[in-house]
């Protein structure tokens, strides 16, 4: 039966190829877009794991911590209040800003993650697992020096001792971090806190990063801070992870949903092809029944055909989606790296199979209901 099914789908080569392409496009889109959200998830999980035990305090806002971070403003008084709460081992006020690498650049062009931190708190900001690959850490009084992540130094082809211009001010690079996995650190630069305040013309801070006395008390400390200081929100990395993974899920759901629609259209193509194929083969199906094929046999034969078409489309789509995912990573210069996880690959193949089987059901049922006498009359 399997051989007969394979022979049947090669009978109308052009039509089969077009049907396969219909499925291919849908599955390739699912794989390529799905890989981006999988990549995002992996990246975020990686950087959050390394920052466990930290609390990030920002201005209370309705934008959530993710977006809130870049617009948050904490005054000096608020920061003093926060730092006075019991149970804090170390605290570092910081300034975040997202700037453009090139002057006069706008949305969509390469960005740089600029952070201002007190030099002796750098280890707290980046966590201690970050290692310098070149040069030295910033020290008190290094007003004309900066440290940068490996991605950005690689991209700009800069080394320790070179100069980088930020907001029209020149900084000499003092140290470069090795790959860390956190986009902010890997593709950002770090300058002293007071220099950043001067540079960005502000008296306030973006956030305070806090390391608790007791790691097990991290949630309680976050609650204490929120209760004792008005107008701030204190998030632990666990909450952070939850929020961000929620956002990533939404992005994934949305993009895969759109791609899924095109795959469903591909599935309708399979159904259309199979209906035509059954109509053309009425006589043959009648003969098969006359010589002893049961209705079940006919149904199976048609379903195998449609599932095969769909699976071939799915496998080719997986390959092309994989290439597409790498292509997207290349175009975005590593900012959106796609990862085709086994889960994504398996689900997209199952979806292709599902489309094939569902698309084949109606034509198969129709074929099995053909009366052999009627089918034999048909010329």
């Amino acid at each position, binding site marked *: *039966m399997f051989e*007969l099914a394979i*022979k*049947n789908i090669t*009978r109308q080569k052009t039509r089969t190829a077009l049907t396969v392409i219909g499925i291919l496009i849908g599955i390739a889109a699912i794989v390529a877009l799905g890989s981006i959200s999988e990549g995002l998830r992996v990246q975020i999980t990686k950087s959050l794991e390394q920052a466990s035990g930290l609390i990030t305090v920002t201005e209370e806002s309705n934008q959530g911590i993710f977006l809130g971070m870049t617009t948050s403003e904490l005054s000096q008084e608020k920061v003093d209040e926060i730092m006075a709460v019991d149970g804090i081992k170390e605290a570092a006020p910081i300034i975040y800003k997202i700037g453009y690498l090139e002057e006069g650049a706008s949305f969509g062009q390469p960005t740089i993650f600029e952070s201002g931190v007190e030099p002796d708190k750098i280890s707290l900001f980046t966590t201690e697992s970050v290692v310098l690959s070149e040069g030295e850490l910033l020290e008190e009084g290094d007003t004309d020096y900066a440290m940068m992540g490996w991605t950005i130094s690689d991209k700009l082809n800069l080394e320790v001792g070179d100069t980088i211009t930020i907001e029209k001010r020149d900084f000499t690079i003092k140290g470069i971090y090795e790959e860390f996995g956190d986009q902010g650190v890997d593709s950002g630069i770090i300058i002293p806190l007071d220099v950043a305040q001067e540079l960005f013309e502000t008296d306030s801070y973006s956030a305070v990063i806090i390391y608790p006395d007791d790691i097990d008390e991290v949630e309680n400390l976050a609650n204490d801070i929120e209760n004792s200081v008005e107008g701030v929100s204190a998030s632990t990395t666990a909450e952070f992870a939850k929020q961000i993974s929620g956002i990533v899920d939404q992005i994934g759901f949305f993009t895969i949903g759109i791609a899924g629609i095109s795959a469903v259209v591909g599935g309708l193509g399979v159904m259309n092809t199979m209906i035509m194929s059954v109509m053309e083969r009425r*006589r*043959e199906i009648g*003969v*098969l*029944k*006359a*010589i*002893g*094929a*049961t*209705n*079940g*046999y006919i149904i199976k034969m048609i379903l195998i055909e449609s599932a095969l078409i769909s699976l071939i489309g799915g496998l080719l789509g997986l390959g092309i989606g994989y290439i597409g995912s790498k292509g997207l990573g290349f175009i975005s210069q590593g900012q959106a790296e796609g990862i085709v996880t086994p889960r994504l690959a398996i689900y997209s193949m199952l979806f292709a199979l599902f489309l094939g089987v569902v698309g084949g059901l109606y034509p198969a049922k129709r074929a099995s209901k053909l*009366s*052999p*006498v009627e089918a*034999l009359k048909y010329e």
Partner: protein
Amino acid sequence: MNNDVIIQAKDLCKYYREGKYNEVRALDKVNINIKRGDLVSIIGSSGSGKSTLLHMIGLLDKPTCGKIFFDGQDISKLSDNEMTKIRRKKVGFVFQQFNLIPLLTALENVELPMNLDGVDSETSRKRAENILKKVGLKKRMENRPPEMSGGEQQRVAIARAMANNPEIILADEPTGNLDTKTGEEVINILRNIGKKDFTLVVITHDPDIAKIAKKQIKLKDGKIINDGG
């Protein structure tokens, strides 16, 4: 019921509705007896109900009223799948249009009914080769139907009909698309290929072929006008 009788029809009829009020009586109260081992011909002009009768005997169609017995079993009210199973094991069909599967080789076409019956592929291959040798197609086994002449295709069709060693072979104008000489060859193969006691029912227009038959059933307007005794 007499064991010598393979087909018995009692007041068998088949009516079709054509439009809202017009009823076509393709078969009207037909009574026949076909003995095991007989060679029977069915003759009649087109539209006389020959093919309908053949389809009924071969379990391809169900009667509107009356009864039909196959090998002692009442087959007038069986389900589709029960009919299919009897057809597969006990009936072989040969059609005017040959009706081979064009994608399969001669050998695969002959194997198909055996595969449908669950015969293992080694046995079915050997048996298909043997039957094809018997019908004189030893050298054409790996050819597909479109590469063969009409006479060759009909011989493959006969081999396919023989595959599951049926009780009865039903041939609907088997020589209708062939020239006289090839037609005679085909009829001779049909007569001599079956097991001892197999029954052959042939629909034909050809009076010479009809004469060879032991028994002639003549139909007109869905009624038997001569049941051949």
